[in-house]
């Protein structure tokens, strides 16, 4: 698992959602930016449209919103399922910016 991988979240509050790996903690945990299909929250966010090229590349089933407030899911690697897809470089950069990884 490396930064930029698109994963399905298998546990915790975001179970079933797709996310993007942003960091691997030295303690063994993986930090994943969580996406959601829920639009309209009054919060800083980054959206990827399912039918645009980024969404198609990442295999998103619907428009996916990454909210700053939803934060990062930290968990062991086995709590994430690989989708065998990766986020384009621009998406990784935007998510890093959203979550203060500048």
């Amino acid at each position: 698992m490396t930064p930029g991988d698109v994963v399905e979240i298998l546990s915790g509050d975001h179970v079933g959602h797709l996310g993007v790996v942003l960091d691997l903690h030295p303690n063994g945990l993986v930090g994943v930016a969580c996406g959601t299909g829920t639009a309209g929250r009054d919060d800083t966010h980054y959206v990827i449209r399912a039918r645009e090229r980024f969404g198609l590349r990442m295999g998103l089933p619907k428009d996916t919103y990454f909210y700053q407030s939803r934060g990062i899911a930290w968990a062991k690697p086995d709590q994430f399922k690989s989708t065998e897809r990766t986020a384009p470089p621009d998406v990784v950069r935007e998510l890093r910016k959203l979550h203060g990884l500048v």
Partner: protein
Amino acid sequence: MAHALPFSVLAFTNATRSSPLLRALHSVALAVPLANKTAFSTVRTHSEALVRDIRTATDDNDLRQALDVAVDGDDFIKGAVALAEIGRSRTARLLVWLMRHTRGDAFAPGGRGLRPRARARVEAGNRLFAVAAASVRKFSAPPGAESISVDEQIVRQAVRELVGPTVPLSVAELGTRGLRGLVAFWVVNELAYVPVREVPLWLEEALSQHFEDGAYALLRILASTPQIVVSEEEVPLADRLDLEHLDEETRQARDRFRATAPQTIGGG
């Protein structure tokens, strides 16, 4: 601290410097040694696939996404590796090492067949790349730099590392723009062989703009690297990055980010 940068681009610079990329593919293929014919064929195949895909872009946003997706896609990476095979030499290996450990350089083909504004941008981008190439050639690499191998995995990894959490975001942004510019360069040169009526003017101009922007982005990274000399005339001080300061900022940001992780393993 050195950053991993888009060396996939540099992997084929040596080939393109001596024989402009697509012109070479169109005209030199029959003359190359047998061993290189497979590589030429591979480049040709991936080049055509890239062009087919990017020509379908419908507007500026779609084009930017298409270029970004192409940057670490199979066609660009496999094509770049094949070009590196063609251009395997001391210089090519040195350039690849530089991309892994410091900054890069590039090539200078023409844009024959392009319309005036696009052609002017491609020529401007070529000039910037020539400046970059000249500055990299003066760089004296440490021992071991020339023995690096270029394969698909290592190129792919380097592109991924470019936006990884250890690379300052501003460096990652310039590097990504540089890579997008190189894909755009590849495609716009191919379009120079397509009848004008089949290529929308906006697409040709946007691709050439991406190329020129990308060339300057890569030159800015080079100019910001202590061991590489680029004149202030080419890159003013205001456009250079303070890499040491950015590295420290990124390290601190990463520490803050990691502090949000649970202390006990198993949290979700």
